[in-house]
Every structure is written in C-alpha cells, then in structure tokens.
C-alpha cells in the first residue's frame, strides 16, 4: 500500500476498515488522507479518536457490572482528538453526529453517565438515518442506543417521581435496547454482505484475512439486555417475543453463537414455562392476557417503536412455522443441536480439556431438552437417532451413553440397546438398574438367555449394595433359568434349570415379600413343575398383593383347571375378563374351558366375540401407538405383505409355550416381528398380543379346533383356511390341516400334513403325538414308537404322548413298558392344565 490512493478510494478504504473494525489501519490511512486534503483535518481527528477508543476497548474489554474506569492516559488522548474534531465545527453534519456519539461513548467508558446522556440528547438518535447509511454507522447507532440504555439504567431518575414515571423510564430503557438489538442485527447482516462482496472482488490475492467479527460489549448488551429485562420483570410474553424476533433475523457468522444460545433458551422457556393452551405461534400476535406474565407488573405487550430499516428475516414460500409448543421447542432444539454438534471438540489432548468440557456441556443441555420434548410426544425412534448424534461427545460420559441406551430401548431397538448398556455398566458398575434393564431386554424379545444370565448375576453379585434391586436381581435370574428350562431338550438339564429357577424365585420372594411379581413367578415355576397346591398358595399371595394382575388371575385359572375344577377356573377367567376385556390370552383359555364345561357352542360364541374384539381393536384403533401417523391397521397391512414374504412366520405358541430352543428359526421371525411391533407401539400395553395378524390367525385356529372337536370338518377347513391365508407355512396351520384330514378319515393326507408341520417345527409335541398315533394306526409301530419317544424327550409332561406311547408299546406286545407309560400318563393327567402353564409370558 505504498502507492497513494486517490481520494475517493481512500475514503472507501477508510469506510471498509471502520465497518470491519480494522482500527489499527486507520492512523496510516488518516496520514494519507491528511496529506491529501488539508481541510479534512477534523475528520482525521475524529477517525483517530475513534480508532484509539476502539483499540482501547478491544484491549480492555468492559465487563458486566465492572466499575467505571477513571481517566486513563489513552482515554485522555481520545478525548483530545474528539474535542478537537468537535470544537472547530468544520465537520460535515454526519461526521459531527458521529463525533458526538463517540464522545458519549467515551463518557460512558469513563463512567460519566449523565454527560453521556446529555451528549445523546444533542444528537437525537431517533433522527439518524438508517437507510443508505454506511455500514459502520449502523454499528455506531446500535452502540449508541445500547449505551444510552446502559446510562439510563445507571443514572437514578432525576426526580423522586411517580411510579408512572418509572414505568415510562423502564419502557424507554427497553426500547433503547430493542432498537439497539435490531440495528445491530441489521449491521451484522450488512457487514457480512459487504465482506462477501469484497472477497469476491478482491481475490486472487489471498488478501488480508478478515478477522472474526466480534460484537463487543455494547452490541452484545444491545442484543440481549432487552429480553433479560423482560424476563426479570416477569414479562414472559414479551421476552418470548423478543427471542423470536432475534431468531427470525437471518443468521450471520457472528450471530451464530448468539442464535444457538437463544434458540436453546427459548426452547427451555417453551418447555418449562409454557403449555399447549398458553402457546401462541411466532406469526401470531401474543394474547392480551396471558398466565405467563407476572400479574403484579402491568407492562405493555407490544413494542411501541418503528425503525425505518429492519434486519432481514427469513422469508419465502412454505416457511415452516410451528403451531404448537413442542413443535417450536423441537425446531429450536434441532437448530441448536446442529450448531452444538458442529462445535464438538474431538481431540483428546489435555490442552483442549476445557474446550471439550464447554462443548460437551452446551451439547448435553440441548440433548436433555430434546429428550424432554420428544419424550413428551413419545417419539423415541427419532430421539434415539438424535442421541446417536450425541455420541461424538460421549467418550466416557455416562449420562449420554445411558440416555442413548434408554432411548434405543424405548424405541424397541433391543439388540443395540443391550450393547450400549454394556458400555454403561462399564462406566458405572455399581448401578444395579443398568444390568437389570439389560436382562429385561435379553429375556424379552431378544431371547439371549446366556447374556441375560450374566447380567442377572451381576446384580446378584452386588449383594447388599443393590438394596431394593437385589430381589429384582434374583427374580431376573430365576426368569432366565426358567426360560432355559423350557428351552432345554434334555430332561436332566430341564430339571436342573427348574431347580435353579425355583431357588432364585424363592430368594427373591423372601427378600421382597411385598412384591407380587416374586410371588407370582414362584407360583408359575411351581406350577410348571406340577406342584399344584404349592403354586396355588403363592398365586393367592400374589393376588393379595396385586388384586388385578392379569397374569396371576390367568395362572390361578389354569391351576384350577389342572385340579379339574373347570367351572371355578372359568369363573376366574370371566372375572379377569371383566377387568381385561380385550386380553386374548384369557379369551383363548376361556375357549378351552368352555369347550370342556359348557360345550362347543359357547366356545364358538367366544371365538366370534374374539373376532369382534380384534376388529374393533385394530380396525379403528390407536394410531397413537404406531409411530408415524398412519393407523395401526395400515401398518399391519404393510406388515402383512412382509409376512407373506417371510418363510417361517410363527406366533407365540399356545401349545408348547413360548419359544423353544429348537424352533429358533421360527422364533427369530417372531423376534423380528415383535421388535417391529414394539418399535411401532412403544406405548402399547405390553401384555397385549404380539402382533395383530398372529392373533387373528390364532383366533381362527382356535375356532377350527372347536369345530374339529364337534366333528365338523367343513367348517374347520374354512377356519383353517383363514389362518392359512395369513400364515401359509405356520406349523400350527399345517397341524390343524392334519387334524381336519384325520377327521375326514384321510389318514395318508393327515400324515403328510403332520410331516410338513414337523419339517417346519421339529419339536411341536402335539404334531408328534398325532403323527405317532397315525403311524400306529398304519401299523408302523417302530416308527411310531420313535416319534413318540422323541416327543416325550421334548416335553416330558405331555400326558397324551405318554398314553399314545403306551398304546404303541402295547400293540408291539411290550406290556410292561406300556403299563409304565400308562401310569405316567395317568399321573401327569391328574395335574395337567387345559393349556400349558408356559403360555403365561415370563418377563421383567
């Protein structure tokens, strides 16, 4: 820059430096200027004064609530320049005003607020032109308003005036700040525009790198002080309004941090201080009377000033404007999140420790608020995705990991949730809740029993430390063993697991005698091992603790049926149904019991009733449960297409209990489906049906069974066909087809159906039993014996299989073994319920 610049170019350069805040270049430029035009000396003084004042402020930034500074030598120098500029009176009008503004600012810096105010009085700020003003002047005006506001706040009202006066004064202060804020935003937008234009013009030379614009104390105050005062006065309505005004202004690089903070603060206020009914949308006028405002302070709700130029706001067609409290909070939080996320400090070197903490804090506040907002609306799926983005902050941060795990769990993403929970356990090994949550997932949809056992043992091993959770730990352990017992294919293993389960449940029950679940699961385990009277005792205890627990009632009914008190059982079921009219598990048991004590017609009526319930539940029902908008039925239809594509659909097995180890393939599909289902309806009642279509198929199969019992093959075929339409390859359907064929006397066909069913689910005991019988009828005794022995191996408590085995052995002439089988069958039959006890779900 050695070459002399022509006058106008020089002026432009000065203007640019002033608006970009490059004060260090001003003296050099002034020298050039004064060499050029002698008459402009006053302007030179002004510029020098300004640049020195700004430099001083840059080096000694004003802090909030700091005491005013005395006369520093440098400030004296500034005053000298400014006085010189003002005194001679040669300045052009615009520059004269600028000099006054600077003088006032200087007075403020020196702590002379009254003098500053009187300077402002001479300028009449409101008359300064905003339109067409050079960029730097916008900043000056904004600063002037802010400084005036500050002075007004500092100087006590001149007279001991009336309250009315102070109100006016308060209003004047706020107006100063609001104007200052608006003009500051305008200034920042203009600077950015000028900068980007400059950058394009200036290229290819790298050019002087423009520094990050810093707002400085005055602009910062101007931008924020207004809403701070609003909230201090309890005027939430105007505070929110001010926040919105600032946020609606188009973003600039400098305001990014401000916007991030304000967006978060506004979201906080929306979530903590407002509700759906007191909400008004950003484009609406605020309500006149709002419960949000302090009723004692009567302040106006609308701003009472207008500016000739306002900052640009976001505009365009189809702008999304929130219509609801949570919507606005979410939008603001998403904006805030995107910025917080961008600032995530990733390096782990110690020097950046404090930066990292800052970035972590600002992000985790946002994520917590997001959790609150989305949790309210039940949007756990979206929440889990948001929290996943938080993971870049999460190294060794327990809270973030835990929240992610919980959100995954709530969103039904069980497998991932378990993995994240593992990390949580590592970070906080003393908290018993975490492994318990993991067990809950493992024995639920995942069916990861070994993992579950490990987690449950963690809790148990905590001993006394786990306090109330210790009992839960034993309960979890018992459930794992109980499920393992059901899965085990060897009798020895089964018995061992059952023993373990029983002792764990007993421990849980003794640790927490008031927990109905402990008593209930103890009863269930006893029932499974056919200790009916003991089981009855505990189930009664459970019912005393929790009178309307559906599973306890169900178990009681089954236990009564095992004692052949069918009528009592039916009464219990009907009582339970009065409390749980839409519980299909109870209804299925009802069908069985009704067939036994009231005849098949009643059972058929119940089936019809079930179909009606099914329709009303899933036809009209709860889109609330299904994540995004569409009704559950739509979803179910979509799922149905998937179902047809799947090869091995299986529904919670009413015959052999829940998932059997050997039908893992089938259970996988079930898992997947129920995972889908639970992710769709995180708020659905958990004990509900697994999947609507599975339930429907089950209803048809039950009806078919009743028809088979009545000897009506045509109707039974029709019902089976309905089920087959839904799940053509389910072994239940195939089994039922076999039964119908048997009823029609088509033994070969029945055999074929049974074989097909077994090829899908090789451990379906009922199929094995029927197949054994058919083989027996076809006089293929040794094969029949083999099949039946396998069946006994799978389920040692199925009395019908023992009986069939006895018959086969008898036919083979093995009377001794046959007798033993018959005796076993007899014994088992005495304690056999209408449906296996294991249909009752076991979960935490």
């Amino acid at each position, binding site marked *: 820059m050695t070459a002399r610049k022509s006058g106008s170019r020089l002026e432009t350069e000065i203007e640019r430096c002033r608006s970009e805040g490059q004060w260090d270049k001003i003296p050099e430029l002034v020298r050039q200027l004064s060499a050029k035009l002698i008459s402009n000396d006053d302007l030179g003084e002004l510029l020098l004064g300004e640049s020195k004042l700004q430099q001083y402020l840059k080096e000694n930034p004003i802090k909030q609530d700091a005491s005013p500074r005395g006369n520093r030598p440098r400030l004296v120098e500034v005053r000298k320049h400014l006085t010189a500029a003002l005194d001679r009176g040669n300045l052009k009008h615009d520059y004269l005003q600028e000099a006054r503004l600077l003088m006032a600012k200087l007075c403020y810096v020196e702590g002379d607020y009254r003098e500053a105010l009187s300077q402002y009085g001479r300028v009449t700020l409101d008359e300064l032109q905003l339109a067409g003003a050079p960029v730097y002047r916008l900043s000056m005006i904004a600063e002037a308003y802010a400084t005036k506001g500050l002075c007004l706040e500092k100087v006590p009202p001149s007279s001991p005036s009336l309250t009315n006066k102070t109100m006016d004064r308060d209003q004047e202060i706020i107006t100063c700040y609001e104007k200052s804020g608006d003009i500051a935003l305008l200034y920042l937008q203009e600077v950015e525009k000028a900068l980007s234009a400059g950058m394009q013009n200036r290229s290819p030379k790298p050019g002087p790198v423009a520094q990050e614009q810093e707002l400085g104390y005055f602009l910062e105050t101007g931008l924020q002080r207004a809403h701070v005062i609003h909230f201090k006065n309890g005027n939430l309505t105007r505070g929110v309004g001010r926040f919105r005004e600032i946020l609606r202004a188009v973003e600039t690089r400098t305001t990014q941090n401000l916007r991030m903070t304000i967006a978060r603060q506004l979201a906080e206020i929306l979530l903590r201080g407002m509700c759906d009914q007191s909400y008004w949308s950003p484009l609406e006028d605020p309500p006149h009377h709002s419960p949000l405002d302090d009723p004692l302070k009567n302040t106006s709700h609308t701003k009472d000033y207008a500016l000739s130029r306002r900052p640009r706001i976001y505009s365009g067609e189809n702008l999304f404007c929130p219509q609801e409290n949570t919507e606005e909070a979410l939008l603001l939080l998403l904006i805030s999140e995107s910025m917080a996320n961008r600032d995530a400090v990733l390096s782990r070197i110690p020097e950046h420790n404090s930066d990292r903490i800052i970035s972590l804090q600002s992000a985790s506040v946002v994520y917590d608020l997001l959790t609150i907002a989305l949790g*309210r609306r039940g949007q756990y799926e979206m929440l889990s995705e948001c929290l996943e983005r938080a993971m870049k902050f999460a190294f060794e941060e327990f809270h973030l990991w835990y929240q992610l795990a919980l959100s995954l769990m709530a969103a039904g993403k069980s497998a991932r949730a378990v993995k994240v929970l593992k990390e949580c356990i590592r970070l906080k090994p003393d908290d018993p809740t975490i492994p318990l949550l993991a067990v809950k997932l493992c024995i639920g949809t995942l069916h990861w029993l070994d993992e579950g056992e490990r987690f449950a043992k963690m809790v148990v091993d905590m001993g006394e430390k786990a306090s109330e959770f210790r009992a839960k730990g034993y309960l979890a352990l018992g459930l794992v063993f109980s499920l393992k017992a059901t899965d085990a294919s060897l009798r020895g293993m089964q018995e061992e697991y059952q023993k373990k389960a029983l002792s764990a449940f007993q421990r849980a029950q003794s640790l927490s005698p008031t927990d109905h679940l402990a008593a209930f699961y103890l009863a269930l385990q006893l029932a499974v091992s056919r200790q009916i009277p003991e089981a009855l005792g505990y189930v009664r205890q459970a019912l005393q603790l929790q009178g309307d627990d559906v599973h306890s009632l169900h178990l009681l009914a089954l236990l009564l049926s095992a004692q052949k008190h069918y009528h009592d059982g039916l009464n219990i079921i009907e009582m339970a149904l009065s409390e749980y009219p839409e519980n299909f598990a109870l209804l299925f048991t009802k069908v069985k019991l009704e067939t036994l004590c009231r005849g098949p017609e009643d059972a058929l009526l119940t089936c019809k009733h079930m179909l009606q319930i099914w329709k009303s539940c899933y036809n009209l029902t709860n889109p609330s449960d299904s994540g995004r908008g569409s009704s559950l039925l739509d979803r179910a239809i979509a799922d149905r297409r998937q179902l047809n594509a799947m090869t091995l659909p299986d529904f919670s097995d009413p015959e052999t209990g829940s998932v059997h180890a050997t039908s893992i393939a089938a259970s996988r599909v079930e898992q997947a489906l129920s995972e889908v289902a639970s992710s769709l309806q995180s708020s659905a009642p958990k004990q509900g049906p697994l999947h609507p279509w599975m339930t429907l198929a089950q209803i048809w199969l039950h009806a078919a069974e009743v028809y088979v019992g009545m000897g009506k093959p045509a109707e039974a075929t029709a019902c089976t066909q309905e089920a087959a339409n839904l799940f053509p390859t389910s072994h239940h359907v195939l089994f039922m087809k076999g039964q119908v064929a048997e009823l029609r006397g088509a033994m070969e066909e029945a055999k074929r159906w049974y074989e097909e069913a077994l090829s899908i689910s090789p451990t379906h005991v009922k199929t094995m039993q029927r197949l054994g019988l058919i083989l027996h009828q076809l006089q293929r005794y040794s094969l029949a014996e083999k099949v039946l022995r396998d069946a006994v191996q799978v389920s040692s408590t199925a009395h019908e299989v023992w009986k069939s085995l006895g018959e086969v052995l008898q036919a083979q002439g093995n009377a001794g073994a046959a007798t033993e089988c018959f005796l076993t069958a007899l014994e088992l039959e005495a304690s056999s319920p209408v449906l296996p006890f294991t249909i009752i779900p076991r979960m935490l």
Partner: protein
Amino acid sequence: MLAMDQGVVEEWLSEFKTLPETAISSYATSLKEKGSLVPALYRVIRENYSDLLEPVCHQLFEFYRSGEPRLQRFTLQFLPELLWSYLSVGAGRDLHCSGCIEALLLGIYNLEIVDKDGQSKVLTFTVPSLSKPSVYHEPSTIGSLALTEGALANHGLSRVVYSGPYFQRETFTAQNRFEVLTFLLLCYNAALSYMSTTSLQSLCQLSSRVCICGYPRQQLRRYKGINTRMMVTSEFLVQLITGIHFALYNGESDLGSKALDDVLYRAQLELYPEALLVGNAIKSSIQGAALKSNKEGTRSIQVEITPTAPRISRNAVTSLSIRGHRWKRHETEENSVDSTDLSPAGTIPEISITGVGGERLGVANGEALRSRTEGEALGVAAEVGADPRGQQEGGSTFRDPSPRFLPARLRLPSHGLPQSRHNPAPLPPGKPRDAVDLGSPDELMEIAEEDEGFCRRAAAEGGGGGGVGGSGSPPTVVISNSCGASSPAPTSGKAAGKSQRRLLVGKSKEKEKEKEREREGLTAPDPRKLGGAGGRAMSENTEQLSLKRLTLTSSQSVPKSTTLSLSRTASSVFSRSFEQVSNVLAIATGNQGHRAPSPTPNSNHAPELNRYSVCSLQEEGLGYLAGRAEHTSPTPHHKQPSPSISVHLAPDL
C-alpha cells in the same frame, strides 16, 4: 370440615344452577375472587366420605361440560387431587366407593376424546425438519446433515399422531385405567400455565405417593397412609414427569425435585426406559441450570447475557474443523499402499483450506466450505443410493459364468499386497464398506470392486505387478484401456457400463479426488482382468500433484502400519469437493510435459469428463451413455487394439 367451608361450598353449588347461559363467562371470571372456595373444595375431595363430594363432583363435571375454558380449567386444577383420591381408594381394595370421582374422571375423559362434532379426536403434531426452511432457519446454512435412514424418512415434515383416538369408556377396568388416567394428565399438562400453585403442589404430592407407596422409600418420605403398592405405567409416569418439570420451574422447586426423585426411583424399580429417559434428562438439566429456588414462589425462569464470541478455542479439533480432515484421513489410508513406498521427499505443501483456519477465512471461504459440505452431503446421498444397486448388480453380474473368474483373479494381488507389506491387522476386504452385511468374502470383494470402480481394481493389479517387477516404484496403477473392445463376455461389458456409471456419479462430486491418482505406465499381460475397466485413464495425469500431497499427509499423520483396505476407498470415493479442480487440472496439464508416457488426450478430456459427470448426476441414464462414449473415445489414441492395462511409471517421484 369446618362449617364455614361447608357454607362456601354450598353457596357455590347453588349459584351455578341458577345461572343463565349468558352469564357464564362473567361468572367464570368472578370465580377467581372467591378465595376460600378452592381450599374448601380441596378439603371436600380429600375427605372422601363427605356428603358434599357427590354434588361437588357433579358440579365440577357441569363446569367442564359448559365448554367455557376458564370453567374447564377450574375443574382441571383439582385433577391431581381427584386422581389421588381415586387411586388411593382403589388401592384400599374399595374400588367402587369412590363412584362419583370415578364418574367425574370418566366424564372428563369422554368429553375430551371427541372433538366438537363428536368425532374421535386425534392429537397430532408436526415433526420439524431442518431440511425444510422455517421461520428460524434456512436449510443451506445448517450444513450437511447426517444422512441416516431416519433423516431420509423425515425429509420433509411429517405429521405424527401422539395421542388418540380413544374409545369411549363407561367404566374403569384394570386394562383401561391407566390409559384413561394418562390421557387426563395429558389434558392437565396442556393447561399447566393456568394451574395454581396449590394444584401444582398437589400434582407433586400425587406423583410422590403413587410412586413410593409400599416401597422402602415410603419410610424416607415419612408418608403414612396407604402402604400398598400401586400399579403405574411408563406413560403415566412420563405425563407426571411433564407436570413436575413445569412445577420445578414455576415456584415448586423443592416439592418438584422430591417428586422427580420419587418417580425416577419407581421407574428404576419398574425398569421403565421411557420414564427414566425423560426423568434423567430433567435431572441433568437442573444440575446444569443450577435452579434458583425462589422463596416467594415466583417463576424462576431467568436468562443472563451470554458472551456471543465462540467459547471454544480455535485450534481445538472440532467436528466442524475435522470435516475436511476426515476425508483426508481416509484418503491417506487408502493411498497408503502407494504412499508408504514413496519417499516422503517429494512433498508439496498441503493445499487445504479446511479446518478452523478455513472456517475463519471469512465469508467467501465460508461459501466454499459450505459448498463443500453440500457436496459431501450429496456424495453421501449418491453413495447411499448407489449401494443397494451396487450389490444387486454385483450379485447378478458375477453370477454369470463367464466373468466369474474375474474377481477371483483380482483378489489375489489386492490381498497379497497389504498383507505382505504392512498390514499388522488385516481388515477383511470390503468390510469397512459401510457395514453392508454380506455373505461370503467373494461377494464382499466383488461388491467392493464394483463400488470402487476400476481404479481400485487397477491399483491392486498394478500393485501386484509392481511388487513382482521389483521396480521399487510406486505401485500405483491406472488402467487406460477401453472397455468394450474385447471384453470376455457381453455381461462383463454390461457390468463395466454400470460401474462406470457409478463411477461417474461419484466423480462429479469429487473431481479433485479423481485428479489425485498417481499412475505408472506398464502394460499388463492379461487384458481380461480389466475387461470392464474403462475411462479411468483421463484422470490420471491430474492426479500426480495430489498424490504428493497425500504422501505428505500420510507421513505426517498416519502411522506406517495403516491397514490397507482397498474397500475403504469406496467410502471416500465420493468425498471431494469442486474447489480445487481447476488448479489441479492446470498443474496437471503442466506436468504433462515431462511425463511423457502418459497419453496427452487425457488432459484434454478431463474438463469434459467433469462436465459429463455433472450430467450423469442429473440424469443418470444419459450420463451413463455419455460417459461410455466419452471413455471409449480415447482408445484410438492409445493405439491399443485390444483392451489392456497400461501402467505408467512415474520415476520422478
């Protein structure tokens, strides 16, 4: 109950009945002035057996049914107390003695679940999305958003049902009880701002008691009364927490935080993730905000002036500053095969305006950055889009018998290289490729190759060749043959075309990258290996410069042992921005001179290539054809009658 209370309540009962329809609204305003009425009503509700309870419940229901919002809120303020009354009586096994409260609750529920026309009401809200402009933001300024499945699904605004429709209920059953109660709390929460302090206190008490009764914590809170456990559901707890959250910041911080602790305690015992999630979040945000407890019970929502300057120091590595780095890292990994063998001497200062420095350059650079991030986003999108297709194509193409041997042959060298040289922990090929779960390693390799386009294949090939040749020269390779001429089978040609197309899609977003390949001239003996590989040649020259740069970065920041994973490239293939294209091109063209072996047409073609790539972005199908035409054209220049690999040596490195 005091006689005075009784008088107040009786007066209240009688006056509404005689009220004309028109006076309702003024009556609603006047209710506020009756200071002793509300406490008296609370007492009536608490004393369950009072004679007044039934008329009071009836009156409250009448208020609600009137439709006047202020009267409805008057009724709603008693909701927590009514709920507690109902639940505590229920817990005492005496389910039906609170008949009138039950009727009132069901009455409100049945009124609220329908809209004015009697249709089932469905509460919905719009999930805002950053990809749509709003009154508060402009999508372009947000930068690239993570392109997750969810983000794509939410592209645009989706309306979500969060409550309803519900069935009309005539009685409470165990099954519907909490559904009804949760919905009632939802209604209460919607009017939270209008609720009095007493009501909020009552809500906190309700929450505490419901959660701890019958649990060891009950002793801690010294609450005597009911000591049987009450059932709760997760959703019910979440609604309670929502109310508590409001109470916490509106004058009830002590009671509120106690209640929150109790709810969290119960949620832990019940293992309810939803309630734990929201509760934990509130707890942690309270700690952050250092809640000021105001003795006067005023609202404690306050804000402070916050510094607007960035609080994070400029030299810290942040997600923003690393955006550029991330790609470079990949690049170095992918190129480490090449670069580790190169001497680091030929370094050229890194051309990089990424990172914090770049960010602070000002607007113009900001724009550049912005466009870069958009490019990234696009790249990812394209990648996402291309992937499944890539798999399918890969699968179907290689199922054809004729080209089957192709990947197998390729796999050998590509494996051999990294393992033998510097691969302490070899990654399975293709594994890091965006975690596409695939069956056999063969498939993996195939897909990786498909996705990467030919350069990788070629690189692997040439790498092997280089090793065998023992030339000690950088083992990078380029293939500059045409694709069609004598590829072994038509199917393979088809595969090539598809790959090219994908390549082009990638290229358009990352021309810079394309220019960054160092190539050597060497003619490979087996043309079939590269049967489908066309068109990469034109970019080779321009890549000379960048490779040097890569050398630098790798020697600086990446450990020598960087695992070579060829497939890794695939993910970074789409990562370049446009910014340096022209520069690099110019330099590359300049370099042409002393890099004699490389065919001159290439540099001429480069800009066109770019152009076509852009086309291909827009209209993939057309771009594909154009791209092929473009690629086949240089063949005559090479004077190669049959497809072959030409690997150019670059001794000057």
